[in-house]
């Protein structure tokens, strides 16, 4: 059908492809204020918590340090890293939830899915965008935090060099783990479509379940709890001294652990894609 007054711009090459959907998601992501707020909070919490914990160790050392026997179990770098990521993962998880639920809460999802009615490219583009953003933001931040922490710990001779065993793996792993938590947030966003529900569920699955499940006095539950997504995924940023303690019950090396974590994420994305495809928008 010919229009009497069609567009002055040539639109003949207009069609949907995955990279265009990714670009659209990027434009949406960077054109709302909450993105910048969440990135700022991520940086402050990640670097701030690390610095506070490292400063604590350095101060404690100047006061005489922990008694022998306990000292060996405490790796200041490992603990700074762990505390920092345990808190930052919540911010990143919220970012993953919101990248999806803000579309549902505002009605934007209708515009998005009308433009990309096959739907699945929206889900995969959001996932890839989220991983890229989390890694680009948190990886340099983790290195910055490591060096800031190291400067503090070095005053008490507690620092670790980057080239010591597992340090590099733990730092990069911490960033990848948080990208995974972001993906879990987005999965819960797709499934529940409400920010409140998805954030509450995310905290339950990532933080509460690994603490509560082992309280059930059954051997197999205890073993199973070692395979919870966050528990198994966190091995990727553990330093060996901490890992030795953990591996008493189940022997999962960091890379295998992260592989299982990734498998959970992929399974969650597949279920989300199925639900997204079937449900009314």
């Amino acid at each position, binding site marked *: 059908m010919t229009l009497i007054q069609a567009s002055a711009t040539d639109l003949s090459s207009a*069609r949907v492809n995955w990279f265009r959907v990714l670009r659209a998601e990027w434009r949406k992501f960077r054109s709302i204020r*909450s993105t910048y707020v969440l990135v700022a909070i991520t940086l402050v919490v990640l670097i701030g918590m690390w610095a506070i914990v490292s400063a604590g160790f350095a101060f404690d050392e100047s006061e005489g340090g922990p008694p022998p026997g306990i000292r060996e179990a405490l790796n200041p770098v490992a603990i700074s890293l762990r505390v920092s990521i345990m808190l930052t993962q919540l911010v990143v998880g919220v970012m993953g939830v919101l990248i999806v639920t803000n579309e549902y809460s505002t009605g934007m999802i209708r515009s998005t899915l009308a433009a990309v009615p096959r739907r699945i490219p929206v889900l995969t583009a959001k996932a890839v965008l989220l991983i890229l953003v989390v890694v680009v933001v948190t990886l340099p931040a983790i290195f910055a935090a490591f060096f800031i922490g190291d400067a503090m710990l070095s005053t008490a001779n507690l620092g670790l060099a980057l080239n010591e065993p597992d340090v590099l793996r733990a730092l990069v792993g911490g960033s990848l783990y948080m990208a995974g938590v972001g993906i879990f947030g987005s999965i819960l966003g797709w499934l529940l479509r409400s920010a409140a529900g998805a954030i509450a569920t995310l905290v339950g699955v990532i933080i509460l379940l690994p603490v509560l499940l082992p309280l059930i006095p059954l051997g197999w539950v205890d073993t199973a709890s070692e395979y919870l997504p966050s528990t198994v995924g966190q091995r990727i940023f553990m330093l060996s001294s901490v890992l030795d303690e953990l591996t008493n019950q189940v022997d999962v090396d960091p890379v295998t652990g992260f592989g299982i974590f990734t498998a959970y994420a992929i399974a969650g994305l597949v279920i989300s894609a199925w639900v997204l495809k079937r449900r009314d928008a």
Partner: protein
Amino acid sequence: MIEAQGLTKRYGAKTAVDGVSFQVAAGRVTGFLGPNGAGKSTTMRMIIGLDRPTAGTVTVNGRPYAEHAAPLRQVGALLEAKAAHPGRSAYHHLSALAATHGIPKRRVREVIDIVGLSDVAGKRAGAFSLGMGQRLGIAVALLGDPSTLVLDEPVNGLDPDGVLWMRKLLQRLAAEGRTIFVSSHLMSEMSLVATHLIVIGRGRILADAGIDAFIDQAAQNYVLVRSPQAARLSEAITGRGGTVRPDEGDAINVVGWTPAQVGELAAELGVVLHELTEKRASLEAAFMKLTGDSIDYRGTDGSAELREAMGGRA
């Protein structure tokens, strides 16, 4: 061209759209008319793939909407519910949606101009009035310069200026040769823009005809006859295959006959006539008659509610 075949949508036990089949022909304005809750929005959402039909199919230019390589080039849609992030500017909203199709930014500025939002394109969509929000929705619908537009209640809630603007825009888009499928519960609004009507009530198609044919079909024209010998005349007309309805007092309504036919028969029988008037049903009356039985939620006086619905914008 939009084609629905046995299109059905059930939400649990409630059937919102009940096996409807219709065609929206290319190059004209088709009004989609029905009371609130009749299934208009659900049908439109199924056209652009937002809702999955429980049964049946709907295609746009020969294919389901989702199977087109460039859906926004096929159909532009304005849905009733809000569909933009309030924290994002109009420009960024459009530019993100344009990006999905690789539509250049130049086209984004074009549609912003067409709908008259140039001065506020950088403002957050959340700060927009209802009318500006509708303009933004129209801009999205026009992004891909589609030959077909699906507009759900485009004048709903607009102030008189907005209604006038929307009406002129629809007329302009129709004049450009676009296929327009526009829903409304306002009969008066439909009669100003649509040349063809599809009427829906309780999820079923009640009428599908040109505006003129619609009036004839829905509320048949009749001849009002007043005569002291009405009974005798009635008998004679019925005897010749005519249909007669009793009216008040000595009046009767003759359906399907012209006044000339009635007058000649009266002369033949020697029946005195006091009145012989052709009654043409109005669009409102036709609509009322069709949908009178199919309104889901009516007050104690349903007709008053309908009158308000139809006359409120006139």
